[in-house]
């Protein structure tokens, strides 16, 4: 374990926590921070999930995450900073797959911006997820 990463847009095989991602935003002008935390769910469509296997095209995915942040700052002028960290590799039920943190001087726009960030991530970031069940597996999109 080295220094904690300060990258604002990162694909990592390390564990991800909201605190650690929020820390990357640190700024004295911050009055509100919102974090979206994606967590591995143990049941999908009635099937029991054993674990999820995530994979990414890391260089392109990090650029896509940065693009999402740029889009957010064009739409919502009050958003100051954005950090998005997505984990890859084998993730167990209850582990955090993604943290999106946004800061602003005031709270008004952070909710819509966070929603936009996760929707856009699912749409454009080159990241893939395979659900592994007790009786099979499938690559899932969307």
């Amino acid at each position: 374990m080295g220094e904690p990463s300060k990258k604002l847009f990162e694909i990592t095989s390390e564990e991800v926590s909201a605190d650690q991602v929020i820390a990357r935003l640190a700024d004295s002008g911050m009055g509100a921070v919102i974090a979206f935390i994606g967590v591995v769910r143990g049941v999908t469509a009635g099937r029991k999930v054993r674990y999820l296997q995530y994979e990414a095209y890391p260089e392109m995915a990090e650029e896509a995450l940065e693009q999402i942040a740029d889009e957010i700052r064009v739409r919502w002028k009050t958003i100051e900073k954005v950090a998005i960290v997505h984990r890859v590799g084998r993730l167990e039920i209850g582990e955090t797959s993604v943290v999106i943190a946004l800061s602003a001087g005031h709270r008004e726009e952070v909710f819509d911006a966070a929603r936009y960030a996760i929707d856009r991530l699912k749409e454009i970031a080159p990241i893939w997820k395979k659900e592994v069940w007790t009786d099979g597996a499938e690559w899932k999109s969307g």
Partner: protein
Amino acid sequence: MKVKVKLFGAPREALGRREIEQTLPEGSTAGALLDLLVEAHPALRPYSSLIKLAVNRKYVPAQTRLHEGDEVALIPPVGGG
């Protein structure tokens, strides 16, 4: 010319490879490269209609012309989050 092709997700698994060095005629398009790959690797066929193309880390339309040394990624439907 030669390009580097990167594979991910279901098509990567179906082919059992993460990367292919592909030689193709000068001036070929990204779409022509995909057709050629599907021809050479039938395991890709079930995914070909869903695959988007990225050249040097940017999504591109199929008619985009390729250049020597380009990094082309076959992007099956994404599912992060």
